[in-house]
């Protein structure tokens, strides 16, 4: 008898966990904003260029000229950190956007317009799925050549299967609902149903997925940089800074620690935000708390039927 309403109700639970914001979340948002600000305002924050080499001052510790010291080629670590924020975020956000454009956009259109387009699309995605994302991105860069463009495309494509699967799962969950059937029975077209009923209900899941994929994009980019096929030397990301300095750990630990700490803090903050969003917006797994078969608890607002009192 008990009907699973918890999912729907939890989905709109505006009161739940609201009000008091956890301190960790505020900190995470602050860190992300700081990184964005650093990337945008880099030219105003430091007079040094991230690329100028000063071979007379390599592996130096912090000084007034170089607030965070220099690396093995005498480049200013602080300037590289600031400009690195720009390229790190730029490349990852663009990569995530491509993953969603293909994975979510294309998948939704294919799903909304009949069986065959969706079947073809997912058959293709299914075949690529066996290859781990990093390896796929690596091979794509090999084929497309190096540079920011191919890197972004490779990152985007390597995360496409994940986005497509999540999109399909949430789409199918929504189309099975009776309100979609009801809209069909009112003569609602595919686009109307997609726009009015499905998109608002899967938007939460997609936003959450984006927040989960963005940090993973950053991590994958850094791995690719480390493997020597990532960002180009003239627009170094934090991943590339770590990779470049990793052979000089002994002589200049600060040159590697600075980008490493920055990278970890950023991914941590982003994933904390993602987790928070998942709890708030995508309560798929949250309904599991109800013990099965037990009586439905009293509704918060007692169901006063007008008939009983009429």
């Amino acid at each position: 008898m008990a009907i699973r309403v918890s999912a729907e109700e939890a989905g709109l639970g505006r009161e739940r966990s609201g009000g008091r914001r956890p301190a960790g979340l505020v900190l995470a948002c602050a860190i992300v904003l700081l990184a964005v600000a650093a990337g945008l305002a880099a030219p105003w924050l430091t007079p040094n260029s991230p690329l100028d080499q000063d071979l007379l001052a390599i592996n130096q510790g912090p000084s007034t000229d170089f607030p965070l010291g220099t690396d093995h080629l005498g480049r200013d670590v602080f300037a590289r950190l600031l400009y690195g924020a720009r390229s790190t975020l730029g490349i990852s956000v663009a990569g995530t956007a491509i993953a969603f454009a293909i994975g979510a956009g294309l998948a939704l259109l294919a799903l909304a317009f009949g069986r065959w387009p969706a079947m073809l699309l997912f058959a293709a995605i299914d075949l690529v799925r066996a290859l781990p994302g990093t390896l796929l991105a690596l091979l794509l860069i090999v084929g497309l050549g190096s540079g920011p463009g191919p890197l972004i495309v490779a990152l985007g494509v390597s995360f496409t299967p994940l986005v497509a699967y999540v999109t399909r799962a949430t789409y199918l969950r929504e189309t099975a609902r009776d309100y979609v059937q009801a809209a069909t029975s009112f003569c609602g077209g595919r686009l109307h149903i997609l726009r009015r009923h499905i998109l608002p209900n899967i938007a939460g899941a997609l936003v959450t997925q984006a927040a989960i994929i963005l940090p993973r994009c950053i991590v994958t980019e850094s791995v690719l940089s480390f493997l020597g096929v990532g960002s180009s030397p003239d627009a170094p990301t934090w991943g590339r800074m770590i990779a470049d300095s990793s052979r000089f750990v002994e002589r200049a630990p600060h040159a590697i620690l600075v980008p490493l700490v920055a990278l970890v803090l950023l991914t941590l903050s982003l994933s904390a935000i993602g987790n928070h969003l998942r709890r708030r917006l995508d309560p798929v797994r949250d309904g599991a708390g109800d013990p099965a078969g037990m009586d439905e608890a009293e509704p918060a607002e007692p169901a006063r039927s007008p008939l009983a009192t009429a």
Partner: protein
Amino acid sequence: MRPILEIADLDIAIAGRRVVRDLSLSIAPGETMALIGESGSGKSMTAAAVMGLLPRGARIAEHSRLRFDGVPLSPEDEVAMRPLRGRAMSMVFQDPMSCLNPFMVVAGQIDEALQRLGAGNGGQRRARMLELLGLVELPDPAVLARRYPHELSGGQQQRVMLAMALAAEPRLLIADEPTSALDATVQAEILGLLKSLQRKLGNALLFITHDLAAAAQLAHRIVVMRAGRVVEYGPAAVVLGDPREEYTRKLVSTRRMLAAPPPGRPEARAVDPALRIEGLVHDYPARRLFGRPFRSLHGVSLTIAPGETLGILGESGSGKSTLARLAIGLARSGAGEIALFGTSIAQRARLDRALRRRCQIIFQNPYGALNPRLTIEAAMREPLELLGLSGRDDRVRIEAALVDVGLGGEHLARYPHQLSGGQRQRVCIARALLSDPELLICDEIVSALDATVQMQVIAMLKALQAKRGFAMMFVGHDIEIVRWVSDRIAVMHRGRIVEQGPAAAIVTAPQAPYTQMLMAATLGSVAWPVPAGTSKGCDFECPIPGIEPMSGGGANARSLRPIKDEDVLSHATAAAVDGEDAA
């Protein structure tokens, strides 16, 4: 006699919310006690507390006292409860499919229960297992024992659960809604089995149900619960025959109203039928590459005249919901003819607006039929806009439609989760009626609702039909409700219509063997106590002005006999226990 189970002042709270309050009852050895309530009444929690199977986070108040055969129980002490479970008391649950371990064959699961009793070596245990399977009247125990649960039918699964529970010949058996997940015919079998087993083994039975008919059939005494409290308590015949409390009266009259004939129906006009279906075939596509498609409808034919109500009666999997969706063009048929108001739609991919306006569908699950992110007003505006009926007075019309179903303007700004199940279903009905359809398809629209709410909703629907004169296809599995609503009934079984005809004739004089079985299952079991001389009618008042409240008490097609108290407990003891508790 010392009661086998005694509960005093049971209080259970989950996260600070009290789900059971001040519950006291006692069960004598060999007695059957029915705990009746709708969802949320706390009846399952009470059972779980007795077994010590309360979910995490549920707390029993300090002052609550539970005694089993005179010995105090401490349900929150896992170590103390374990020796009792499966020995002195055992339990069967609602949904046998999920309550059996899907990874283990039947023999293994029963053997586990026997092993724990230390019942001899392998050979002896096997013999005992086969004996138990025979005891629950399963045919061919040796073959069944090797099967996995998913290879059994629902009824067989529940029998296996029973065999497991009875392995130790417990003195108390708790049955938590043991039949509500099963089909009507199977329900009757399981209830009969419970009764005969009890006679054979002499165990006490705590029977938890929302089904008054089942309780009437099985129980000596009845406890009616609502919102965690006991509403009424006493011998079955007394509680059901002459309820004192208003809530119980409402529950009982719900069923009694079903026994009464519905209000008169409008004259059928002899014109084009609203819906004509001929030789309809439907296949579900194969799930995997080399699978075979599943044929859900094998050539179904029927017609619905304007203003008429055709009931489609069938158990789960009979294809009745598929039929409903096909009839309104929400799915494509394989072969056959569907004509809506004379227009053939079988081969059409989409229906046009003009046709859509004339026929509407209401779904089973009112939680799913409304988009959780749209307010009631937005949800109701949708059909107006899509069907091209939108105008200046939209809001007025929507409000009027809500008033028609007993809601009002104050509900416009609410979201679906702020309404109760019955209210949501009313919104769905109001929405479907906005375009003033001539045919309304109701797909199990009340089966997700509680009994009292069910009756309110169908009474309202019938009243609206009387006022507006639309035809209805009323799909359902509850014989009494379908009968009450319908003028004619078509009985479906495995994708075929096995019988159709006037509602009264189908119920009282079924011709097809399947229909006979179905009716026997229900009518045989419903021993509805109607004390002689009572002329209490339906307690429901109709929400729509201008329509007479339904009346008519015991006069009905069915011969209702009072409950026969042929078992152990005499009325005297029951009354004594009752008086003791009431004091």
